[in-house]
């Protein structure tokens, strides 16, 4: 195919993506023409002030929301042309999502929460158990498997949410402030986990964060302001 090696390596490509919420007077432009390319295996940190459109961008990346205009290519798939069910399948098979507000199932044990994506993938009960236990171990929650979200601290819930996102071994991990509720020590631990997933499993990571310290773990930082990308740079001083 034309386009050469660089293009083959691309996993995410936003072209002139805009998102408008509402109509008429009350309409809010959350994204106002975003161009963004992410290659396989990259670790990208998205930063920006509150309300600048980071979560909106992330929801579109995660195929949960559709752009008002512009195109979103996931590998060679034009997401804009997919049906609702096709987008669900894309999420199921290629993406892991950590929500800003954890979004765990209440009254359901940590283990079962983590097993959930595997259930929809049709993984057998035994494999499900084992992989969920491994994922919980990765985020340092061994021993907490049977606790429900109501019995876990905010930080622990966040780690369950991360375990749930990585348990399927997705091609891309989309994390909306995965360390928002963690102390520095825990945050750094989670970052180490993400780095490992990125380095050794080749999982592409897109992470929203408010903390420059966390952003430094990434290969690249993308800054949003008022629905536009205002800065897109490689992190200096790293390998």
């Amino acid at each position, binding site marked *: 195919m034309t386009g050469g090696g660089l293009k083959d390596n691309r996993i995410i490509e936003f072209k002139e993506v805009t998102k408008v919420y509402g109509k008429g007077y009350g309409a809010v432009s959350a994204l106002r023409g975003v161009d963004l390319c992410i290659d396989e295996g990259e670790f990208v940190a998205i930063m920006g002030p509150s309300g600048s459109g980071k979560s909106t961008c992330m929801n579109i990346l995660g195929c949960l929301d559709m752009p008002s205009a512009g195109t979103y290519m996931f590998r060679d798939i034009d997401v804009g042309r997919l049906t609702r069910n096709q987008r669900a399948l894309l999420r199921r098979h290629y993406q892991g999502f950590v929500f800003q507000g954890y979004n765990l199932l209440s009254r359901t044990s940590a283990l079962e929460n983590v097993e959930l*994506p595997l*259930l929809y993938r049709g993984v057998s009960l035994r494999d499900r158990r084992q992989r969920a236990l491994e994922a919980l171990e990765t985020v340092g929650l061994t021993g907490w498997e049977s606790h429900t979200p109501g019995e876990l601290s905010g930080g622990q819930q966040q780690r369950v949410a991360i375990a749930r996102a990585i348990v399927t071994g997705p091609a891309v991990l989309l994390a909306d402030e995965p360390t928002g509720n963690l102390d520095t020590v825990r945050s750094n631990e989670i970052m180490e986990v993400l780095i490992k997933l990125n380095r050794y499993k080749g999982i592409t990571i897109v992470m929203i964060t408010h903390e420059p310290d966390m952003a430094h773990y990434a290969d690249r930082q993308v800054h949003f302001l008022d629905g536009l990308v205002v800065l897109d740079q490689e992190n200096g001083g790293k390998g």
Partner: protein
Amino acid sequence: MLWNTIWLALREIKRNVMRSFLTILGIVIGVGAVITMVTIGGGATVQVREQIASMGSNLLMVSPGKRLGPGQSSGNVPFKEADVEAIMREVSSIAAVAPVSSQSMQAILGNQNWSTQVTGSDNQYFFVTNRSIGTGRQFSESELRAGAAVCIIGETVRKKLFGGQEVLGEKIRLQKLSCEVIGLMAEKGQSTMGQDQDDMVVIPLRTLQRRVTGTQDVSLIQVSVRDGASTDKVQKDIATLMRERRHLGPSDDDNFHVMDMKEITKMLTGTTELLTALLSAVAAVSLLVGGIGIMNIMLVSVTERTREIGVRLAIGALEREVLMQFLIEAVVLSSLGGLLGIILALTASLWLAGMLRVPFIFNGPIVLIAFVFSAAVGMIFGYFPALKAARLDPIDALRHE
């Protein structure tokens, strides 16, 4: 996946035992009532059939008066004893003919007093109605001819008047008529309509006519057709004979009616069946109400669990998987109601059958149908809420508070 979903549904139900129970109560009562009605009704019908069979399948009943028709009414011209003799003489293939006239009367012995049905007939009566004399004897020819003051009593009358005493040769009073007990009928038990068939006294027809009613009338003629002969033909022959004897012209309608077993069965079981159908219909309505209850709770459940649905959709659940989850939950819930209903119905039927003295006949098909129906109710009434859940927008659902 299916087992997972069913298991998930059961867990969801367990989480809210009280609410789940109240939700399915309508289904429980509906299924329970339908099965109970059909079972008891079926038992009653079978009982009527058995009783009719015990009367002999080749019985014909000739009664005066027209068959009910639009805008017709006419005074009943009663039969006479001569009609009975004519049938016996002129219609072929007849085993026995018995005239029957009855009257409700007080039977008195000493200071015992009992109201009972007194039937005037002859010895053919016992043959035609399939009854036998337990102790004592039938009427003698001379007693019948002379209209003697003798009687044959049923077991209930014996119990009420005599208690443990010897009955044969004793005299009882039927209002003003004092007559000697010459026989005791073998016990027959209760009829479907709750009538005690042993609560009766039989006296010679002439005795009844002369000493009680004061007329020559015979109110009913019972005919027993010979085994193997065509009842249809005998029925027609009797009708032809009666038309002749009553001088009816070709354009006149019958002013009497010959009923065969099929008609008698229909008449007797018809009421039972109609009642059963009616009550079952009422019960079925409660199933419908139960379905609406399920829909209501499922809608509440969908609203309550909007975030959960959002999470599932965001994680990659397909619309139809979410639909299935809620549908299965509704079906599991209503099937559970169906099962409880079946248990309730079987208990209630057994108890009621004992109370009403109707045989308990387990009706497999209706139990199965009721169960399938309850599951279908869950499916139908769960569909709309499930669709509502499946159609949710994941982002909106996740934001839902």
